[in-house]
């Protein structure tokens, strides 16, 4: 795989929204995704984690051009040819969209309540016409089996299914076009604990069986670890850490990533820690702190020369260890051996 082009090559992608624009008022710019770059190999899954407002969902939507990017490129290598997905139009865009699908957080909101499951699953075939009409019914039945639903569910409406079943339908719909990449935006967050495990297993099996690539967006670091090969941590629009899952969970290098991990409640009362959640709350993305966005909450940037640098100079995403990047001036000094025991 080393010589082959990555499936997805995201270069300096940004997405800004203008808020409060009026006749003579230019409004304010919210940089929801700020100069994000990463690559994704075929069959690989990238976990994008962060708290609300960090830009992880906007990133997912911008990648699929549900939002038009403000700047940057999304180079996709599909069927041996690379093209810039962020600029193509018309039929080429439609063809490319087949290869990129999305599963949303709230399965109730993403399924049309007035369509039967059969109609919902037939729609992708009707739009893209990539399968002869005579085969569609068989394909639909195959999809149902693949996501663990019974065929007799096809004539029912979404309301008669549980949350977990609806999410399976959402996944089946995403699979209908045989995509290469699926963006999963908090796909298990709305589900009960026992159902969450079932859907995570399903996603894992589908990935293995079909060689899919995932971008798995979640705030749940434990669920992300279960699915993802690599992790990107976002804070106020920027990737602050990017590493293999193994390297990340063994030794996170950005203070925010450390804070996220130590804030996570662990289902083991023996491991109740005297932890130090970061101070304060996430600042407004409309007017983020200068320099390193995290410096206002960072336990390492409290005073003196350090604070001066962290508040004055934007840190670059630097390779701290092999294939392990962090956006912190002092990443080399950060260790948290206590996390490894968990």
């Amino acid at each position, binding site marked *: 795989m080393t010589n082959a082009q990555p499936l997805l090559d995201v270069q300096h992608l940004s997405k800004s929204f203008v808020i409060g624009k009026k006749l003579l008022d230019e409004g304010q710019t919210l940089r929801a995704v700020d100069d994000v770059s990463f690559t994704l190999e075929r069959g690989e899954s990238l976990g994008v984690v962060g708290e609300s407002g960090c830009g992880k969902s906007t990133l997912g939507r911008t990648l699929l051009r549900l939002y038009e990017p403000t700047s940057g490129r999304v180079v996709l290598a599909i069927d041996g040819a690379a093209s810039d997905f962020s600029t193509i139009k018309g039929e080429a865009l439609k063809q490319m969209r087949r290869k990129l699908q999305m599963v949303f957080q709230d399965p109730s909101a993403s399924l049309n309540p007035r369509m039967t499951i059969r109609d919902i699953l037939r729609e992708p075939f009707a739009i893209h016409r990539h399968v002869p009409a005579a085969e569609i019914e068989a394909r639909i039945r195959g999809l149902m089996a693949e996501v663990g639903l019974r065929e007799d569910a096809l004539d029912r409406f979404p309301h008669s299914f549980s949350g977990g079943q609806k999410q399976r339908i959402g996944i089946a719909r995403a699979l209908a076009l045989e995509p290469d990449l699926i963006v999963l935006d908090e796909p298990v967050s709305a589900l009960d604990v026992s159902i969450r*495990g079932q859907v995570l297993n399903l996603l894992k099996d589908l990935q293995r069986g079909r060689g899919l690539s995932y971008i798995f967006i979640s705030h749940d*670091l434990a669920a992300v670890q279960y699915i993802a090969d690599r992790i990107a941590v976002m804070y106020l629009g920027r990737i602050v850490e990017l590493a293999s899952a193994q390297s990340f969970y063994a030794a996170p290098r950005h203070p925010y990533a450390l804070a996220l991990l*130590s804030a996570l409640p662990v289902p083991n*009362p023996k491991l109740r820690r005297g932890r130090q959640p970061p101070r304060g709350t996430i600042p407004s993305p409309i007017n983020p702190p200068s320099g390193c966005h995290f410096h206002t909450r960072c336990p390492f940037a409290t005073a003196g020369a350090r604070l001066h640098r962290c508040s004055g100079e934007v840190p670059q995403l630097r390779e701290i260890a092999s294939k392990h990047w962090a956006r912190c001036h002092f990443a080399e000094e950060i260790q948290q051996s206590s996390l490894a025991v968990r």
Partner: protein
Amino acid sequence: MGTMEMVAAADGREQDDILLHIENLKVGFQTTSGFVRAVDGVDLKVRRGRTLAVVGESGCGKSITARSVLGLLPEQNTVMSGSIAFKSRTGEVLDIASLPRRGKRMRSIRGAEIAMIFQEPMTSLTPVFTVGDQILEALRLHTPVRGAQALARAIELLEMVGIPEPESRLKAYPHQMSGGMRQRVMIAMALASNPSLLLADEPTTALDVTVQAQILDLMRGLQDELGMSVVFITHDLGVVAEMAHEVAVIYLGQVVEYASVDDLFERPTHPYTRGLLNSLPRIGATERLVPIAGSVPDPREHRVGCRFADRCASRMAKCDTPPPLIKLPHGQDVRCWLHENEGGTQS
């Protein structure tokens, strides 16, 4: 035997320690699509200064149980039975379940001796009044402090829950605050009357993980400081491990396991509890998850026998008979026939 006699007759110190004792609580709702038995014979004990976590998936009846303690359930089409014995400040033991919910006695308890915080503070705070107004209202309703004293107390409460610049924040409206700050305001309001029992219904579920950690730390600190008891309702076993002294696991309106927090995580015994724990991805673990099969059934379905049987990998013929809550020798209670012969007394 009624609750009063139970409490009175019970032996010595352990019982003295019990602030709230729910016995055989049943709550049902008559809906257009049938009768829903939301809570079906729940027994819970809350001890002084301790946290009881009530854990279960959506629809298990955990929130309904808490709401019935405060008489917050809708009056129409609701059928409720059982007893809720609460040891009041005056020393008398009251059966909350039998008190008229709009009566004077109930109002002197609700919000004053027993307070509650909810999942989404935005829907529990009024958007049209300042935070200060709302805290002052709580003080006016539940305490004798008035005027300048009340204002000072409101500032003190905001300080206690870690709100910076409390004096100026009194003038803020809820929408001007972040979710974490609003939850702190909710907690401040709940603490206004120094309640002996705090019911917390998924208080951190809507919050980001770093903010959740702050609120959990705050709640633990406040409990140590004020000595109140907490009923912490959650679906998150991580939060249970962090917060609880005792844990009740609920499935379809019944307690299926009851244990100290250490026992529960060290020796999860009911197949449902074990299934929940096996469903959880954990940092550092790589093995495949073994989630519980199926999903929580419709509570309108009539069920005989064990509620969990149709999802249980250990199902046997006997499961058609409803299992009692069996007391295991080391102090854990479990509602499962697998442990019939290990059991001491049955309740």
